[in-house]
């Protein structure tokens, strides 16, 4: 019996396409973010709040992933920015190939910001690099405050935690301090923003975070600042 060492990542084909996308985003100074949460935590609502605050001259695009329906794309298209639905037909996550196909006729040079809403799932999307500059995990106070411990992979990999539905805090037994401590046990120093997409409270913190990241990616890339 002969043992032959193998090199490389299992998802190297995905990673190859993701690297290609990342190079493309970097060259055009496009900030790409990958939003991940369980179903119903408020990814689409956060995107609605984000898009409604942008003026018409902002160069923003959205890809939104779901197993079925284009409901989210319809919800988001009313703000006038380019939105494309990726319907996975059963697959529980987006992969880099799907993103590349969805962007095939989009010019990166026309986008300063690309927001990708992943399929609602805290497990599988964590394994797939989409070429994003950062993963953002959205969690809501109607979920358990131990979620970071139950799904450590995504909380480990995401740069930012957006804690949504803060307006519902009086009605649920959710402990914000414990949730933040749990997130930082998995990901020491993790940035956390508390928002309510329903009332708009805290959304400006998210917008500031976004603006800082966009400035940084404009500086790094060849794209012109907005």
């Amino acid at each position, binding site marked *: *019996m*002969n*043992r*032959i*060492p*193998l*090199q*490389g*990542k*299992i*998802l*190297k*084909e*995905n990673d190859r396409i993701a690297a290609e996308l990342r190079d493309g985003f970097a060259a055009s100074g496009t900030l790409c973010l990958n939003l991940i949460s369980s179903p119903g935590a408020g990814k689409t609502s956060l995107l609605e709040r984000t898009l409604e605050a942008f003026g018409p001259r902002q160069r923003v695009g959205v890809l939104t992933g779901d197993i079925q329906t284009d409901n989210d794309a319809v919800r988001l298209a009313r703000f006038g920015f380019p939105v494309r639905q990726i319907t996975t037909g059963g*697959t*529980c*996550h987006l*992969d880099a190939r799907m993103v590349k196909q969805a962007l095939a006729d989009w010019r990166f040079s026309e986008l300063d910001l690309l927001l990708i809403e992943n399929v609602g799932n805290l*497990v*599988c999307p*964590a*394994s*797939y690099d989409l070429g994003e500059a950062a993963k953002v995990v959205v969690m809501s106070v109607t979920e358990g405050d131990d979620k970071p*411990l139950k*799904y*450590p*992979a*995504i909380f*480990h*990999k995401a740069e930012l935690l957006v804690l949504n539905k803060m307006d519902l805090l009086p009605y649920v037994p959710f402990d914000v301090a414990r949730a933040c401590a749990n997130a930082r*046990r*998995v990901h*020491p*120093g993790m940035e956390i923003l508390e928002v309510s997409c329903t009332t708009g409270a805290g959304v400006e913190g998210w917008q500031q975070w976004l603006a800082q990241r966009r400035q940084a990616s404009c500086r790094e890339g060849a794209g012109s600042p907005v």
Partner: protein
Amino acid sequence: MHELAIADSVLKVVEAEAARRPDARIVKVGLRVGELAGVDPDALSFSFEVLVRGTKLEPLLLEIERCPRRHHCRLCGCTFAVADFEAACPECGAAQTQCIAGDELELAYLEVEEP
């Protein structure tokens, strides 16, 4: 259940290796899967078994090495295993330590019988 897609990616690598070694028989493929990889080893093994069934590669075994989470402390330079999410440095107490292992999703080896 992305384990099926991951098992499929592993199988494609093994098929490519098998094509490069027409005289050899691949007996086993080894993987390294970190505890932070977000991949369930049992589901991955089951998916792999199902995909291999009925192919020329059958009976191909899968061995998964589970890789624990390890951190490095930049302050004192020590490296330690993180159990139960306690990521503070056990030597100097520094709270900010850096994850250096535990999110592997890698190919490790093939075991091959050659004539």
